[in-house]
């Protein structure tokens, strides 16, 4: 039985962003941009979508005098990611889902 995939996470860039944030406490915008290879504009739009859904928390702060945008995954985002991975298993061929 196929489980529905969260459309918010079923996107290459948004999934890459969330997967990146899973393993860290927080990450700066330039770091996420470098790791995903996305353009600044596109990444900003996708992070805004994730933030609006409550999956990612965005904090705009300063490092010294330099503006700094920090992103963190939220508990809701973590839950959504786990549910997404669980749902993915139902789409994999038998034997590959474990």
């Amino acid at each position: 039985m196929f489980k529905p995939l969260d459309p918010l996470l079923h996107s290459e860039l948004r999934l890459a962003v969330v997967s990146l944030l899973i393993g860290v406490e927080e990450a700066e915008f330039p770091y996420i941009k470098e790791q995903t290879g996305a353009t600044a504009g596109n990444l900003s739009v996708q992070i805004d979508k994730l933030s609006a859904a409550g999956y990612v928390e965005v904090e705009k702060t300063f490092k010294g005098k330099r503006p700094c945008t920090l992103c963190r995954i939220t508990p809701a985002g973590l839950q959504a990611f786990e549910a997404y991975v669980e749902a993915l298993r139902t789409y994999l061929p038998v034997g590959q889902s474990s």
Partner: protein
Amino acid sequence: MEEKNNMTAERSLEIIRESIERSQRAITKNSALPLIWWGSVVVVFSLLILYLWKYQGGPVWNVLWLALWPLGYLGNRLIDKHQTPAPPSFVGKTIGHIWASFGIVCGFIGWTVCFIGLGVLPMELIAPQGHVVCISLTSIIALCFGMGSTITGFVLKSLAIEICGIIGGVGGFFLALQFGGAEQLYVMAAVSVVSLMIPGLIVYLQNKGKE
């Protein structure tokens, strides 16, 4: 990365795997130079103190170990400034805590024994009056070095670092018992090479290969 919404399940899992691996690689990559740096500093100090101990006045030169910590720390800060910083993570912090614990425990034991040997602190602090106590400080520190490296290897999932840690720790512990006096510092230098510098080089070369 283009905006694609019609991914297959396999592609989704591939993206997840790659992203997580990239994060881990960033942390591993940043640990290479600090390992090599601290290893080098310990080797230099070991050989310097060995020379001074043997030819210039005896074990009192062990006080130079006091200078290792600030020098090593400054060098580490310089390395951190020139590396692309990895974002804070549980793994990165755990490694920091491992080596901080090592520094605190070994520093405390080492300095207590050192000050007792110099007569600054009373012997009764560690042993009842009249008891003779023999401690191979080098063995203890070698063991702690080895444990620190081994645990770091487990956290970073690096078999090479785990093996180097075990060899350095166990080998250093028993080898240090074979030597007395200044010669023990040869063992300290060797343990540092095996437990710190070689793992650092391995990680450095592995990351070079992946770039």
